[in-house]
């Protein structure tokens, strides 16, 4: 790691002011991604502002919503009684993320802002538009088994690695921030960005803007949710594909449904097409198959990752089968 200045912020406003004042300043919360990025030379910063001790760790329920402080750890959120009971998809996504040690360190805010595991991005020397805009994308014709089949562009096909973000996308969460211009709220749908021609712009945050909380609407009684993650080994591995499903059934009929997918796109991928194929219809082999078709209709495999097209359909089938059978 290159030398950098370090400061510990006592108040959110102070953290924002310090980072905003330096072009290459950044926040550190758990450090579990930032340190790797700096060690690998994928990112350099001349100022690192420690926000881990900010009093933003609370998890509070009010008015049918759960507000989770950005500094709450993945472990604390995953095991919180309200999250376990009311938001199983979120608890499961977190418990299937990383390892117990990392979940003890990593924050909810940092989790949403972790960067892609694309090996070219993390190895300076390779062409990568995300790390060095305009340098090209080594993954397009290179090793791209882990890369996106949906939502990518000819500039970048890296996937967003967060499991939590996929669950939050299905749950329609809101991200609260504090920026140099004050606080604001960003719907999760607008938080992460598709790469287009600017893959280095990954989210809606401005320089120096701090995530302060994530707010999740608590599903009405009768809503079921589940997270399914498919990976190369049974545990402690990023998703090849994952599926988050939130449904309300009326007998065999799907009344409400939200479906989001991980491992397949540069951002947590919500599929309105797949949802439309199921809403108001019975959950059967046929309708689930149609939802899968709709999901991958615009898929664009890039060589090594073609298997994901079929795998994500199967993940959808599996998660819906399990939810449909669940009492």
């Amino acid at each position, binding site marked *: *790691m*290159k*030398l*950098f*200045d*370090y*400061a*510990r*912020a*006592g*108040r959110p406003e*102070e953290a924002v002011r*310090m980072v905003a004042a330096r072009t290459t300043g950044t926040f*550190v919360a*758990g*450090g*579990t991604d930032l*340190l*790797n990025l*700096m*060690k690998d030379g994928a990112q350099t910063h001349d*100022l*690192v*502002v*420690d926000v*881990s001790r900010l009093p933003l760790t609370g998890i509070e329920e009010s008015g049918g919503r759960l507000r989770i402080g950005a500094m709450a750890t993945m*472990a604390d959120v995953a095991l919180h009684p309200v999250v376990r009971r009311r938001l199983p998809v979120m608890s499961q996504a977190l418990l299937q993320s*990383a*390892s*117990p*040690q*990392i979940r*003890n*360190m990593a924050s909810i805010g940092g989790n949403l802002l972790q960067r892609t595991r694309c090996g070219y991005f993390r190895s300076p020397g390779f062409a990568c538009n995300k790390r060095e805009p305009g340098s090209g994308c080594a993954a397009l014709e290179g090793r791209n088994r882990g890369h996106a089949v949906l939502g990518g562009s000819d500039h970048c096909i890296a996937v967003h690695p967060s499991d939590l973000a996929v669950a939050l996308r299905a749950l329609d969460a809101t991200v609260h921030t504090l920026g140099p211009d004050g606080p604001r709220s960003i719907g999760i749908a607008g938080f992460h960005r598709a790469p287009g021609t600017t893959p280095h712009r990954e989210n809606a945050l401005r320089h120096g803007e701090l995530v302060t909380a994530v707010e999740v609407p608590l599903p009405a009684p009768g809503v079921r949710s589940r997270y399914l993650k498919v990976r190369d080994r*049974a*545990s*402690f591995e990023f998703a090849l594909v994952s599926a988050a499903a939130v449904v309300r059934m009326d007998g065999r009929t799907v009344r409400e449904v939200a479906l989001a997918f991980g491992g397949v796109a540069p951002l947590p991928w919500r599929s309105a097409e797949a949802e439309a194929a199921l809403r108001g219809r019975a959950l059967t082999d046929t309708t689930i198959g149609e939802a899968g078709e709709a999901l991958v209709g615009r898929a664009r495999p890039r060589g090594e990752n073609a298997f994901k097209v079929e795998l994500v359909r199967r993940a959808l089938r599996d998660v819906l089968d399990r939810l449909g059978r669940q009492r």
Partner: protein
Amino acid sequence: MSEPSQHAAEDSGPGRRSVLKAGGVSAAAVMMPLAPGGAAHAAPGPSAAPRAAADIALRVNGETHRVAVEARVTLLDALRERLRLTGTKKGCDRGECGACTVLVDGRRVKSCLTLAVMQEDREITTVEGVARGERLHPVQEAFVARDAFQCGFCTPGQIMSAVACVEEGHTGSRDEIREWMSGNLCRCGCYPNIVDAVRDAAREVRR
């Protein structure tokens, strides 16, 4: 133990050396256990000005150490290279293997993924700190009894993770132990014996 370190705690570029020199701190000044009363040294308060190196208090295994570190020094490197607590191992330095696992305020973490300056005034426990005098911790006993290692490189991390795993109560079944020990890899493939050891230790601790 107070010998000057031969190893830089980080890639020893000229930058590092000059900063430490500028600060007037030599490596020999490291590892000065303070009397408990002497620990009342000012932590960089909230509004401390940003800086590239700091003189911090690290509380490790019940002792407070004053140590001058650059901000970029990981907790792992500070423990190993500065405090000479080499029980904690560096495998991948990327959070992937678990060899560097220590407890911070009782919770298991990967010391390669956090900065020493971030852990100031936290209670850090390393593998050197789990035995009670000559009496091994039940997890250590179980690892010996079950032959839960071959080369031993991953073992300190496995033991620290297992101490926490037992404490957390994630030991209900072999599958549960495997899942909750999955952050610790073993190149020698001692997993079955490690699971046995964690089970035994959990029973012993619950008795």
